[in-house]
C-alpha cells in the first residue's frame, strides 16, 4: 500500500493519532531497552557500581547548601583576613601582602638597594630632595593593610621600631633615636652582595678596586654604580671625583699633592692618590662602608694627623711610577700606584696585568 492512498481525514484522524502514539511508545521502549542493555552489560562486566562508595563517606562528602558556607561546608572567606607575623619586625601583615613586605623588611630583592640607600640617607640627614623622594615613596607604599596599620599605631611605642617604614615615620620627630635604630637594622640586614650593583654592600677593599677600574658614578634613579670604564661618556669627571670622595672619605679631595698641581686637568692622579692614601691609613682603622659614608664629618678631624704620612708615601710611589715611564697616561699611573700599594698589603688583590704594567714602567 502506498502512502498516497492513506486516508488522512475524517474518522481516520483518531486512527492516525493512535498510530502516532504507537510510534512514540515504540521509541520510548527502544530507549528503555537500550538503557537496560547498557546497565546489564555494566553489571556483568562489573563496572556498574564502581562510582559508588559506602554510605558513610557519601554522607561525609555530601554537598553542603547553606548560606555562608561553600559546598564543602567551610566558611569560604575565612582566609580573607588572615594575617602573618613578620619574623623580622614582628608586625602582623595581611597574608596577601606578606611576601612583598618581607622583601622590603629584610632588604632583599630588586628594590632593596633603594631602601637601603634610603636608610643610609636618613642616617646622613641628606639633602632635601632626598627626603621629598621618601615622602613620595610613603604615599606609594601600600605595604600594610588598613587593620595592620591601626594595630601598629597602637603598639608604636614598644618593640616594633626597626622596620624601614617605622624608622621613616619616626624620623621627623626623633632623629637621633631613629638614626641609631635604622643604622643598626641596616648593618644587621645588609644582604646585598651583588658585585657593582650596590655600593653599600661592598667592603672598602672591593670598593677601592672597583673605583680604580670603573666609572662608579652612582645613579640618582637606581642608586647603583655605573659599571662602565673610567672614561665613560655619560658621567663627568666631576661626578666621578665626587663619588670617590663620597665613598672613600673626604681625605681624597682634601689632599692636594704635587702631582695634582702639575697635571690639574687629569682627575685620575688625585683619585689614585686618594685611593692610595686611604689604603695606607686603612691599615690601622678598619672602616665599614656605612661608617665611611655616614661619618663624613667625623673623618675630618682625623685628617689633620695624616698629611705627613700620606705625603711621604705618595711621593715615594710617584717617584717609582712616574720617574721610570717619563710621561705615561694618568690612568696608568694611578693603576700602578694602586697595584703597588695593594701588592704591599694584599698581594692577591693586584691582578697580574696591572703589576706587569708597573714592571714596564720601571
Amino acid at each position: 500500500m502506498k502512502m498516497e492512498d492513506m486516508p488522512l481525514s475524517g474518522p481516520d484522524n483518531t486512527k492516525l493519532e493512535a498510530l502516532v502514539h504507537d510510534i512514540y511508545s515504540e521509541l520510548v521502549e527502544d530507549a528503555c531497552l537500550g538503557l537496560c542493555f547498557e546497565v546489564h552489560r555494566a553489571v556483568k562486566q562489573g563496572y556498574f557500581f564502581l562510582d559508588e562508595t559506602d554510605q558513610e563517606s557519601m554522607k561525609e562528602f555530601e554537598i553542603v547548601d547553606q548560606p555562608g558556607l561553600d559546598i564543602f561546608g567551610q566558611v569560604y572567606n575565612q582566609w580573607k583576613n588572615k594575617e602573618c607575623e613578620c619574623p623580622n619586625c614582628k608586625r602582623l601583615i595581611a597574608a596577601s601582602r606578606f611576601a612583598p613586605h618581607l622583601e622590603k623588611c629584610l632588604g632583599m630583592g630588586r628594590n632593596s638597594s633603594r631602601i637601603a640607600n634610603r636608610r643610609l640617607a636618613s642616617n646622613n640627614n641628606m639633602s632635601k630632595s632626598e627626603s621629598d623622594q621618601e615622602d613620595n615613596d610613603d604615599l606609594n607604599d601600600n605595604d600594610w593593610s588598613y587593620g595592620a596599620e591601626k594595630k601598629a599605631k597602637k603598639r608604636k611605642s614598644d618593640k616594633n621600631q626597626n622596620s624601614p617604614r617605622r624608622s621613616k615615620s619616626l624620623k621627623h620627630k626623633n632623629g637621633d633615636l631613629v638614626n641609631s635604630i635604622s643604622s643598626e637594622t641596616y648593618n644587621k640586614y645588609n644582604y646585598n652582595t651583588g658585585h657593582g650593583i650596590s655600593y653599600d654592600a661592598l667592603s672598602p677593599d672591593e670598593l677601592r678596586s672597583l673605583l680604580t677600574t670603573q666609572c662608579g658614578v652612582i645613579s640618582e634613579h637606581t642608586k647603583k654604580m655605573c659599571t662602565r670604564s673610567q672614561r665613560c661618556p655619560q658621567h663627568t669627571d666631576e661626578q666621578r671625583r665626587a663619588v670617590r670622595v663620597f665613598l672613600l672619605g673626604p681625605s681624597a679631595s682634601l689632599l692636594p699633592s704635587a702631582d695634582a698641581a702639575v697635571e690639574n686637568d687629569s682627575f685620575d692622579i688625585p683619585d689614585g692618590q686618594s685611593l692610595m692614601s686611604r689604603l695606607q691609613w686603612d691599615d690601622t682603622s678598619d672602616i665599614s662602608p656605612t661608617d665611611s659614608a655616614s661619618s663624613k664629618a667625623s673623618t675630618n678631624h682625623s685628617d689633620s694627623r695624616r698629611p705627613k704620612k700620606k705625603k711621604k708615601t705618595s711621593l715615594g710611589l710617584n717617584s717609582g711610577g712616574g720617574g721610570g715611564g717619563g710621561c705615561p697616561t694618568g690612568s696608568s699611573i694611578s693603576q700602578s700606584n694602586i697595584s703597588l700599594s695593594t701588592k704591599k698589603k694584599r698581594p692577591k688583590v693586584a691582578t697580574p696585568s696591572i703589576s706587569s704594567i708597573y714592571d714596564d714602567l720601571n
Partner: protein
Amino acid sequence: MSKDSQMRAAINQKLIEMGERERLKELLRAKLVECGWKDQLKAHCKDVIREKGLEHVTVEDLVTEVTPKGRALVPDSVKKELLQRIRAFLAQHAAL
C-alpha cells in the same frame, strides 16, 4: 484490520527508509539524558539489581522492571515534541 496493519507496516518502513526513525531516536535519547530521565532510571536499576543480587540479574528482569517506569518518567514536553515530529512526518509523506 489487515488494511490497518498494512498501513502501519508501510509507515514504519517509510520511517526507516527515510532515516526519520533514527533521527527521532537520537533526538529522544538526547532529550532524555538532558532532563535527567536516564539518571533516574539508572538509580532505579541500581535498586532493582541490589534487590535481586548482582549475579542473578537478567535483561528480561530489567526490562520488565524498568520499562513501565521509564514510560511514566518521560517529561511532557519531550513527549509533546516527539509526537509533533511524528505527526509532521506523517502529514508530509501522506501528502505526497
